């Protein structure tokens, strides 16, 4: 009879399911057991009721006592009531278990994605990732809270019916068992046909709403480019690629229903066909004929439920394979053993670094083939602890990439980057990122309070420290004027780009990095505010190693050394003083044009 539980050749990745179940259900063992008990009793009561009806009918047929019949009805009603109570309890436990489990899975996934390197995130829109982490896992929630448990309950009920029928008469038991096995096989067959379609539906959903998300974040650009009609046109084009997928998967769902209807008709026919001759030959009573009919109909319930839940499984199946796929995507950055860096300034060294972006994360297979575009070539320099390096170069010359490498967002293809002589790759990632910090012109803010935005949700950062940092940057008056001060919610609507950039500086003040990279960090500030910032930056850079990237010469006049990049190569490197005094140096030339501009 075990074959009914695990139909052969059904490609439900059972092991995957249980692998997932095990990890997340273990901490909730008590709830799982309670749920199982409720379920077991509920199934028992369901099996009991038809027996009461048979007793009732046979007694009535024989003209038995009225009181017996009334008693039987009362027992029937009592058992039914109790069964529903058990059902509610089972649902409560299963939902709780399911959501606790999937919440954990969601958090795991989100955390996993958050830790993946930038090449992963570059290839995906946030909308797409929402769909992966929340959408896919929510279908899994159905699996956790309903399927495993209700599927189990239904399989139990199915087995129960078959056992009781066999005890009644082996011929009936045997024919119903054969029927059930065949029915399950057929249903599983149909189910397997559907899986690729459900996966396609989810993928279409993800890309469609990824598209919607992009448009919603770009409303200003769409509107001002007069591209509204264009966006609406792409919307309709996307609908047209989405629809056929929906059509196919729904028709397949419909065909499953059809198959089920036909199977159930076979079941009824079988019950009639087997029971009638037995009654005609006086082997069983009329009450038993009804019992067989009733159990066959009872069989419909688990088979129907199993059908429904297998359909849910189709969705969960696609979800599971995408979730495991996502979990299997590992960061290309491998944690080292750890480094012992002091809190003080650190020496920065690049040794023959070559780097190009790889395009290997391709969710869309039609995307361009893998290729490597050299962004940095043979970069070597050493910046002593506590010194400031000014990094100059045209846009696209590789300055930002150099900064990203030092943050270890990527690893170079050749060469090595060292902090105090220790390669970045042999340290832990969070060590690198706690010692090195980067301020860019793109400031990423959360819809959360100012306090949370500045401390990055770290409750251990005291308000005093936050206020001190705000004061340092001249932001304290602005915050004080806000209705809820540090608790005020930030939104991009009431914050200018310049203010956002000052907030980004405040974040750095609240941390204690050894190496600071300023990537065009003051580019959105007006000169008057920038002058104010100068003071703060001077304080910030004291006792720290720094790399300052700027288009404007003025910003990097404070540096000890200068590195000029062109097309990813080092054009000029040396001490600011020496280069400044050498009239033939590129730096001196730049400085002349710059100063001319200032003096004109």
């Amino acid at each position, binding site marked *: 009879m075990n074959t009914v539980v695990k139909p052969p050749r059904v490609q439900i990745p059972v092991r995957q399911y249980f692998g997932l179940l095990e990890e997340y259900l273990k901490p909730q063992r008590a709830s799982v057991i309670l749920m199982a008990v409720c379920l077991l009793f509920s199934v028992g009561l369901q099996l009991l009721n038809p027996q009461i009806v048979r007793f009732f009918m046979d007694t009535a047929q024989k003209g038995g006592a009225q009181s017996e*019949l009334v008693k039987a009805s009362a027992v*029937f009603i009592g058992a039914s*009531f109790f069964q*529903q109570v058990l059902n*509610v309890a089972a*649902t409560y436990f299963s*939902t709780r278990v399911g*959501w606790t489990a999937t*919440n954990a899975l969601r958090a795991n996934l989100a*955390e996993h994605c*958050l830790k993946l390197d*930038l090449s992963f*995130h570059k290839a995906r*829109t*946030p909308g797409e990732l*929402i769909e992966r*982490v929340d959408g896919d896992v929510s279908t899994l929630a159905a699996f956790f809270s309903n399927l495993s448990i209700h599927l189990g309950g239904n399989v139990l009920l199915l087995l129960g019916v078959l056992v009781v029928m066999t005890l009644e008469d082996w011929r009936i038991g045997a024919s119903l068992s054969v029927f059930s096995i065949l029915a399950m096989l057929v249903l599983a067959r149909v189910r397997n046909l559907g899986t690729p379609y459900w996966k396609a539906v989810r993928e279409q*959903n993800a890309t469609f*709403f990824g598209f919607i998300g992009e448009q*919603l*974040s770009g409303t*200003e*650009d769409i*509107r001002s*480019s*007069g591209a509204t009609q264009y*966006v609406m046109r792409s*919307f309709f084009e996307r609908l047209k690629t989405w629809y056929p997928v929906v059509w196919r998967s729904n028709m397949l769902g419909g065909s499953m229903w*059809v198959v089920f*209807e*036909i199977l159930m*008709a076979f079941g*009824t026919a079988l019950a*009639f066909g087997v029971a*009638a001759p037995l*009654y005609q030959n006086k082997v069983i009573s009329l009450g038993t004929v*009804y019992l067989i009919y009733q159990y066959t109909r009872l069989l419909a319930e688990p088979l129907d439920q199993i059908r429904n839940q297998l359909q849910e499984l189709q969705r969960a199946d696609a979800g599971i394979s995408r979730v495991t796929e996502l979990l299997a995507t590992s960061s290309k950055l491998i944690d080292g053993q750890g480094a012992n860096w002091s809190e003080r300034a650190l020496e920065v060294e690049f040794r023959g670094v070559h780097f190009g972006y790889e395009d290997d994360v391709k969710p869309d297979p039609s*995307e*361009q083939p893998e*290729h490597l575009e050299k962004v940095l070539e043979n970069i070597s320099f050493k910046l002593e602890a506590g010194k400031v390096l000014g990094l100059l170069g045209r*846009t696209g010359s590789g300055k*930002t990439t150099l900064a990203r490498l030092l943050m270890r967002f990527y690893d170079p293809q050749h060469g090595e980057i060292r902090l105090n002589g220790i390669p970045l790759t042999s340290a832990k990632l969070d060590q690198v*990122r*706690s010692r090195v910090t980067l301020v860019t012109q793109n400031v*990423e803010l959360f819809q959360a309070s100012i306090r949370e935005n500045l401390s990055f*949700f770290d409750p251990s950062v005291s308000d005093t420290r936050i206020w001190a940092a705000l004061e340092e940057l001249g932001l304290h008056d602005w915050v004080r004027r806000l209705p809820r001060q540090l608790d005020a919610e930030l939104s991009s*609507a009431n914050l*200018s*780009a*310049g*203010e956002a950039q000052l907030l980004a500086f405040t974040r750095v003040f609240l941390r204690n990095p050894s190496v600071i990279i300023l990537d065009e960090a003051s*580019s*959105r500030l*007006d000169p*008057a505010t*920038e*002058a104010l910032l100068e003071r703060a930056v001077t304080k910030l850079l004291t006792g720290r190693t720094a790399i300052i990237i700027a*288009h*404007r010469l003025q910003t990097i006049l404070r540096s000890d050394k200068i590195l000029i990049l062109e097309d990813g190569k080092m054009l000029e490197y040396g001490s600011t003083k020496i280069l400044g005094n050498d009239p033939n140096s590129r730096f001196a030339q730049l400085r002349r044009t710059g100063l001319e*501009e200032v003096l004109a």
Partner: protein
Amino acid sequence: MSSKPMSTWHVIRTMIWQQGALYALNTLMWGLVFTIPLLEGLIAKLFFDTLEKRPLELNITSIIALVMVVAVARALSIVGGMAADIPWRFRISALLRRNLLAHILERPGARALPVSVGEAISTLRDDPGMVEEISDWTLDVSSRVVFLVVALIILFSINSRITLLVFVPLAIVMSLTYFYGSKLEKLREQSRESTAKVTGALGEMFGAVQGIQVAGAEARVMAHFKRLGDARRAALLRDSVQTQVLNAIYGNVVQFGTGFILLLAASGMREKTFTIGDFAVFASYLERVAHTTEFFGHFMSTMRQTGVSIKRMIELLQGANQNKLIEPHQIPLSGSTPDLEPRVKTESDTLQHLEIRDLGFEFEGGTRGIKNINLTLERGSFTVITGRIGSGKTTLLRAMLGLLEPQTGSVLWNGVCASARDLIPPRVAYTSQVPVLFSGTLRDNILLGLPDDPKKLEQAVKNAVLEQDLLGFEFGFETKIGSRGVKLSGGQVSRTAAARMFVREPELLVFDDLSSALDVNTESQLWDRVFEHSSETTCLVVSHRKPALKRADKIVVLENGCITAVGKLEELLKTSGEMRRLWSGELE
């Protein structure tokens, strides 16, 4: 937003009328699907009655044939029903999404959404689905009513007393759950809200990955996310347990009903006035009738939940006429999409002079914003707006272009009042401080639907000083730009946005501090190219950079949202203290 949100029924009715013929076909098919089971009960009665009274006359083969014929008939109507149903329901949510998106794109671009992007996505994803679902369920309602009526007639003719006594409690349960349902609605809303918060947090998290990684704040951000997740779990748990209690009531109705039938039929069965066949019909119909009442209860509560969904969608309309949500539009599901017709420049589009009159915008609750802005731009002039951070430069541009809704004032194009709808290409094009690019090729990003004219495209790229970058791309214009253009550097994004602006050949070019993403040489090159091409070009630029200030025919100094000085650089350096501070900041 004081007006009452429109009723769910109104929305459903509109959805039905818009595809009336298809709906009629659906009604027919699903009517068959739901009424055919009536025959199943009657076949069971035939079987048991024959077996009880004339067992030896029973012809099993014909009974079995009957069972199979009925099943095949039902199967065929299911297939027909699905074929009619899928396009019908798909168009419903597609229409709602279309209307929402179209409206959002019509809104002032800088303030298009009243909620976070993540929340708006979740509304566009889930809420139209709710309306689709409930509209679809009206088919079940009508079919089930037919079933219910016929079933009751049959049962009444078999035994009127039992029919009445058993089906009265069903009616009671119906009304009970109706009252109960209002509580469910509130729970539903809570769980939806908590879901929106979770998706919103996810969106922000993945939008700010680099920032989080820089700060090494993964663990703390995750803790924040987990708190939201726990809140959602609690809300969902309440929601689903309540729903299950409702289901249990329905389940009990079937069982109690069967128990009552047994009780009431006890004497009849003993006296053979109520046969086992009769009992079979009662049991069979009772189950389906109970399913039907369960469905109605479910339908009612889903109706209320859909009301919540509709309310949320109306909120996205931000006070516009609610009927925009359900406005009829063609939703083609196949075939080719017609090409766009570009807007042709007419004579009235040619800019002579543009006048901003008494423009004012204030942010809610804040003192920030702009006041009493009066400004005139002549054809071929170069105007620079400058000022400290927070002085209202960007707000001024946005309010003027209708990307924010100004509270006061107007913009006159050649003396004619121009609405936001008029201030787009080919009249005006705008490059914002932090431009957004879209996933797709560079070409698509620059053209955004304009006809592909290689000459114009090249000229635009040249004007934007992007041609060197383009040479560096292996795939040229076909280079795919990753999500939000991150594969490009900040300067490349800005220059692509500038090219997007140039290719539209607008009368007026508006730059919001484009220079911050460009180095000095590139910026000078850009201005040279803008003006070498034609002296007719009119520019309005936010900048505090010297090349722009020096070139300006007119500088506008903003302080706390007000214009405090206007003039050429030399004059202003003499007359305006703020100008001197802004100019000399770099020297300090």
